[in-house]
């Protein structure tokens, strides 16, 4: 079962702290390799909290861990902290402003229990080499 939600990205304090502590460390993946979903959307998805999911947009696809919204409720809106995971799927079009459209990308979320969430360096390296599924 897949659900469609509107994706926004941005800073969280955990993202900021783990970024300064080193983006190569597991804490950065814990802070940013996630998608925050509203309880109502979890119900529609039919998944437990902390399940790995595949998030797909017209621009790409990424595996992240689905967690319950920390700053909700926001049904229909999903949140991935800014970072390489979010940037795999955001709308890169700038519409002649120079600014990619980091907020407001329609995405599809589906359960992908057995697929791992990659670390930031590995994700970007594999993506650049075309080694991502």
């Amino acid at each position: 079962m897949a659900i469609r939600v509107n994706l926004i990205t941005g800073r969280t304090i955990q993202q900021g702290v783990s970024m300064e502590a080193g983006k190569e460390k597991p804490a950065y993946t814990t802070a940013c390799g996630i998608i925050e979903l509203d309880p109502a959307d979890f119900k529609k998805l039919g998944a437990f909290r902390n399940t790995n999911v595949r998030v797909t947009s017209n621009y790409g696809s990424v595996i992240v861990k689905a967690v319950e919204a920390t700053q909700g409720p926001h049904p229909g809106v999903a949140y991935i902290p800014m970072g390489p995971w979010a940037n795999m799927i955001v709308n890169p079009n700038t519409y002649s402003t120079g600014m990619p459209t980091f907020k407001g990308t329609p995405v599809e979320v589906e359960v992908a229990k057995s697929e791992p969430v990659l670390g930031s360096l590995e994700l970007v390296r594999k993506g650049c080499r075309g080694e991502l599924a």
Partner: protein
Amino acid sequence: MTKTITDVVCPFCGTLCDDLEVVVSDDGKKLLEVYNACAIGAEKFLHSQAKDRITRPRMRQEDGSWKEISYDEAADYTARMLADAKKPLMYGWSSTNCEAQSVGSEIGEAVGAVMDNTATVCHGTSLIAVQDIGIPSCTLGEVKNRADRILFWGCNPAHAHPRHMSRYSIFPRGFFTGKGHTGRKVIVVDPRVTDTARVADVHLQIEQGHDYELLDALRVAFKGEQLPDVVAGIPKAKIYEVAETLKSGRFAIIFFGMGVTQSIGKNHNIDAAIAVTRDLNEYTKAAIMPMRGHYNVTGSGQVWGWQFGFPFAVDLSRGFARYNPGETTSNDLLRRDEVDAVFVLGSDPGAHFPFSSVRKIYDLPSVAVEPHETPTTEICKVHVPVAFVGVEVGGCAYRMDNVPIETRKVVDAPEGMMTDEEFLKSVLMRVREIKGV
């Protein structure tokens, strides 16, 4: 014995807190404790002490491994790469001091580069809006001492500028704001119930991407004209109430962030927000300020402003400064294959650019000047680690309200490490030798 250094400036966000206390060892080589900083700022200071820190430049080998090289070799590679390129992109410039930015501009002029800073994915659209219709702004000191109506639009300082609320906007007791937060009305506009929204008096949970409509609705409400029943998911009664709250204040300040600059509408959202501020000045005093992210992204705009006349996306490839967002901005250039080398300093596009742009950097000759190990250093051909500005070297930085503040050095960098400015100067010298100028 340890030493405590007071009045240290925090080099993380645009709030540039200047009241930190840092405890260092007697010989000034080790940083032991950080007081008064937020969680992110403290981590930034402490991470400079990491045991696994990379302290020498390194070059990527054919087999994918790294080989250590000297700073001279790194400067030579960088200078050759920039001099050989027809149109190199020199991106970043926000996590460094104005002195280094200025040397970077000289290199950019010498090699005909496109200079762009992190505003391009942050407040670039705000800068476009300011050029459209101007900006009635103020300093954070005025906010602290005068503002009694605080509006946060599409920003979440509880997470992104953690001490902003306690130092300037919500809680401090200022000259005319002696009652602190009890004398202020706080309004938050955000599609999520953010931690900032939780401390606000009013939260408008706007439908994501409908900021322009709600801003325009506020302008209508100021004039007492008719509104539709619901605008951007907000009932009209609530909009009239917020308009009245803003008008009844003695000094209103609007802070805005990525929620408006990165959502669809982009610079037009900011146009509308500035127009709201202008309209509000018919009834009371009002000002508006972007919540700048990097501690010295404002300084980068200032330096290029006085050197080239433009705050970001400056194309020097024709021998004079051109500026055309959408054409001379990093993501557009990368995605259209219009640059042939990438130099990154004080930023991490590998983590913070959409992946379609990141992939292009991977395919190009590239150098990253960066104290940390990041997704950018992972995909660049040469990584040059440098001293942390604001921790291991001082220099000028501009706060989000365009106030310059001199950052302080608190500890020595690991032995033999260069600063941004020193490395850039050696690159500039090599570029001049190669170009014969």
